[in-house]
Every structure is written in C-alpha cells, then in structure tokens.
C-alpha cells in the first residue's frame, strides 16, 4: 500500500472514535491526518510512539483518536509531562500535540525551558489563534485587532511569534506551516520526528466556528484561503521590503536542524 494515503493511515486510528469531536471545517482534522501520514511514511513502530497532549481542541487530536499510548494531561503541562516520559524512557518517540492556549499561554514556561534544555521531543502546536473549546477567547497568538469573545472591540495586545520565540529559546529544529500547506507540513513533521533534540512545528490551523465567524471569515474554505494568502515562504520573503511583508506570516524552517 502506498505510504501516507488515507487508506494507509486508518490503521493508526481507533475505529470506535468516529465521528471526531471537531466542528465542521476545523483545521485540526487536517493536522490529525498529517501527523499520521508523517509517521506512516517514516514507517515508525507506532507502539513505540507516545503522544502527550493537554487541554483544548488541539489536545483532542491524539486522544482518543490515535491507536497507541496517549497521555492526556492537565492544561498547559504536556511538555513537562513529556519531559518525564522521554527522560525516563528515551527509546520512546514522544510527541506533544497542543493548541496555542495550552502550549503558548498557560504552558509557555514549560515550552521555552524544554527548548532550552533541548529535550528530545517533537512538539506540534495547532495554532488556531483562539480558545475554541471554551467559546472563543483571545490567546497569546491572536493578531492585534482581531475580535474574540473577550476582545469584542478588537485585540489591543500584540501576539507572540511562536516559532521565533521557541527558536530564540534554543530549540534545535523549528518550522512553521499551515494546514493549507499540507505536503511541506508533513515533510516538516517527518524532519522533526527524526531530529534528535527539541523539534517544534507551529501549525497555523483554522477555527471558523470561534474565530472566523467573529472576523468576517465564517466559512471553512474562506479560512483556508486566508491561510494560503497570508502565508509567505521564508525564501519568498527574501529581498521584500517591510511594507510588502505587512500582514504576512512567514512559513518554512526557521531553524533547519
């Protein structure tokens, strides 16, 4: 069977968990598949892959969907839990999956310290710019001016550039892609999985239900198009003026590993 196809990755999913809990048009389903495609293409022993996730929509990507060991922990702490798993059992391939609220807000301290320590983890942050599960509140990655449940007049604060933050903290592999850019995203996850050291992949995801509806982009396809249009590759951005980069999110490998 061709590796990385839908038929080929179904064996990694618990058959009894469908339908998924995600809203219609949620970008997380694409990421759910992308992680499995990366694992399938690498032909990893799935029983020796352990997923650690926290609280929020992003945390539900591995748990309960993935048919291997999953440790679904407290809000914000998956990177710290995963540190314990990996240090004690280094032969396991330990992957953290979480959202921007989980990984970057309440869990921000664990994120930068694990990056600094260069713990051999793969951390995948499903960044949909909003707290989806709790009703659409502002997060540390919500763009300035964006409307959320708790910033009805527009977000007055500046967002984190997550990938750059983690790179600055010392991570030895850092990349950013979106759920629109699936092929490079899968390639990046594969690279992060093979990387020895702290690998971080920021994945821009879409939340039409809680983010799009409040920001004049209520449809799933509209949100994916917005990701396509707002992202610019690092290579493409070379030589561009600051004005030309306004509103653009740079994607690619910030720290190639």
């Amino acid at each position, binding site marked *: 069977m061709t590796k990385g196809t839908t038929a080929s990755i179904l064996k990694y999913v618990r058959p009894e968990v469908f339908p998924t809990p995600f809203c219609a048009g949620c970008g997380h389903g694409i990421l759910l598949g992308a992680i499995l495609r990366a694992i399938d293409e690498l032909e990893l022993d799935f029983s020796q892959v352990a997923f650690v996730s926290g609280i929020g929509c992003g945390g539900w990507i591995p748990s309960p969907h993935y048919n291997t060991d999953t440790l679904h922990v407290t809000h914000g702490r998956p990177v710290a839990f995963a540190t314990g798993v990996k240090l004690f059992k280094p032969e396991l391939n330990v992957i953290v999956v979480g959202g921007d609220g989980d990984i970057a807000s309440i869990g921000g*301290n664990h994120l930068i310290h694990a990056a600094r*320590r260069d713990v051999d983890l793969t951390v995948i942050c499903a960044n949909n710019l909003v707290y989806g599960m709790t009703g659409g509140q502002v997060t540390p990655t919500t763009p300035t001016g964006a409307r959320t449940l708790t910033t009805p007049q527009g977000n007055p604060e500046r967002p984190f550039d997550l990938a750059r933050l983690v790179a600055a903290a010392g991570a030895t592999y850092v990349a950013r892609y979106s759920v629109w850019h699936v092929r490079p995203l899968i390639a990046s996850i594969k690279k992060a999985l093979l990387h020895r050291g702290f690998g971080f992949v920021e994945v821009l995801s879409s939340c039409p239900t809680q983010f799009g509806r409040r920001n004049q982009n209520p449809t799933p396809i509209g949100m994916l198009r917005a990701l396509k249009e707002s992202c610019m590759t690092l290579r493409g951005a070379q030589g561009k003026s600051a004005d030309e980069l306004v509103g653009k999110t740079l994607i690619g490998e910030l720290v190639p590993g």
Partner: protein
Amino acid sequence: MAVSRRKTTGKDVAGSRGRVPSAPEGWSVIASTLEPGRRLMQGDEACAEGAIAAGCDYYAGYPITPASEIMQHLCRRFAGLSQRVFVQMEDEIGSIASVIGASWAGARAMTATSGPGLSLMLENIGYAIMTETPCVVVDVQRAGPSTGQATRPAQGDFMQARWGAHGDYEIIVISPWSVQEVYEETIRAFNLADRFRVPVILLLDEAVGHLRENMTVPEQVKVYRRVRDALHAPFGEAEVPPMPALGDGARLLVTGSTHDAWGYRRTTSPEAQSQLVRRFVDKILHHRHEIERNATYFCDERELDVLLVAFGFSARSALGAVRRAREAGVAAGLLRPVTLWPFPSETVGELAKRARHVVVPEMNRGQMLREVQRVAPGALGYNRTDGEVITPLEIREYMREELSL
C-alpha cells in the same frame, strides 16, 4: 542540561558500582543500597536514601528551603548509580508533571518541596489521583502562609495535604518523627503508592528534615512494585487495576477527564463519575489496616489522666512531656499517628474513651485537633505558630495549669 542519566540498555552501563537489583512485580525483599549499620544522618538525607533504597529511579524537583537537601543528596547519589534520572525542572508544576509522566513510563518517581511548592503541585496531584498514578511527594513543612518563614518549622499543611486538590478522593499522607523513621517511611510511601496506585505525600516538618541523629540502616528492604499487566482494564474492574507503562503495547488512554475502565472519556455520564470517585475512596478505605500506622507510648492503663495525640516533631516533645508527667505520678500517654490520612479515627476514638483529657499539641492552629474532635469532642488543642517548635516543658506546663495534672 541538568539531567544525569546512564543508558538503560546495552553495554554502556557504567560498571556495576551501586547497581541495585531491580525488584519484580508485587512484594519482594531486596538488599539495602547503603551499607547496613549505624550512621549519623540528616532527616532530608535519610529521605533521599530511603527513596534510593525503595528503588526510586526518577527525581524531578525545584529548589526550596527546607527541602533542598533531598534534591541535592539525590542528585549526588544518582550520579553514582545506574538507571536513575535526575532533573531540576523550571518550577514545581513542571516537577510534579514530569514525575507523573515518568511514572507512566515505568518509573518509581518522586519530587520534594515545601508548602509553597505543594500549593503549586496540587492540580497535578489531582491529576495523579484521577489517573491513579503512583508517585511520592515530599513536603518539608515551613511556617506559612505564603513565603512565611523558610527556615522555620510548622505543621500547617496537615489539611492542605489531604484536601488541597479539588474534587472528592482519598489520599495517603505519612508523617515520620525521626531520622530512622524518615528512612523507613519513605520506603513505605513508595510501596503504598504502587500498591494502591495513588500519590503518597510524605509530610515532614523543617525540624525533622534538618534533624541530625543516629539511625540504623537495615540489611534488607521490603518493596512492592506495581503490576504491569497490559491485558486487563487499567482504570477499572479491579479495585486497584494493573498499570502498564507507555510503550508496553497496552495502547493506553490516560486522561484526567472522567473515564471508563479502558480510559475513554465519559464526561457526561453520571455512572462513570460516580463509579470512579467511589473506587478512589474505597480502594483506600477498604485497606485502612494496611495503610494505617500508629504508635502508642505509656497507654497501658485502663484509665489515663491525659492522652496526647501528636505527629511529626511535636510528637517528640509530647513524649518528653508524657515522661515528665509520669515522673510526677500523672497517668499520661501519647498516641502518635504515623499515617495521618486516612486519619486513624477508630484508634483515636478508642484510646480517647479511656482518657479523662485529650490534648493535641501541634505547630498549627488546630488542624489535627478537628479530626480528633470528631471522635473525642472534648479534645483540647495546644498550638504554636511562631516558627518555633513546641517544647516538652511547655506541654507539661499546660497540663499543670489547664488540667491541674
């Protein structure tokens, strides 16, 4: 990176120096890691040595007075032993989180802290209760609330240790009073944690943690290691279910959400929630006899003039006061709960019935007193919260002045 680790497999294992024979599942007797015999040791060090003897192979911590010596000692000792992981985490939340993660990876894991750190750990201690993760949390109590007096003793975490995490549950809390007992009870804490799949809190106070006295290292240590059966439900069916590790092929679903016997989230099911909470309570209370440990001193008469009930360092002073009272012809006795939670209500109640007065000296505003009063409503408290230990003389003075004994 503050991580010291020897390879777990293969030929790289650095010699056999300090190698501890790994214990099988269930009960077994293993050789002591320290040379048997008398030695002078500090309470915190004895805790670290007890952990090593019990087979602790993962420690994560964050510096805090008066518990730091436990981390320092373990860091030094782990470096000379094979198959042990030490990590200094970024905070106490990360420490307990990584301890629970390591426990699921198969470790005998521990962290140590003081009151402020315990406060930070409590959410994840609740997670350990919900996911039935064995681990040992040491709290060397200091005067609080908040930063309080870092180098001064207190017993103000008696209730926090029991009720600090939200929700309904039973937890095991142990409080030793001597360096010898710190060593022994640390081993017992690991055994109880694995036996009942529950976090065990070892409650020291600064005075016991920093106490230096002679102790005897036994030749052998009795240990219980959890059953790692991957074929049966890891979260139900049995009162204490088997606990496979990550990577054992059990395809574990571990979650802090309400779950069924196989770990599937059941977040709106009244039955699942009720069954889970009931089992968390029953698996401890049905085995009180296995968990409780009390010591009594001078309690042989049918009628006592006064019964003191005290734990930790305060019990040392209480015993001194009992001896002094005995010299003056007073029939005084001491009951010392070593297991604080589940609270030994029955034992306290039975003994209290035979005493004219019951007094609870403790370094807090009467936290254990409330538990004693549930079974002995007339019990009185003797409290000190000035960061100083209670002395034998002042308890004796209290008996004379308040009880005319």
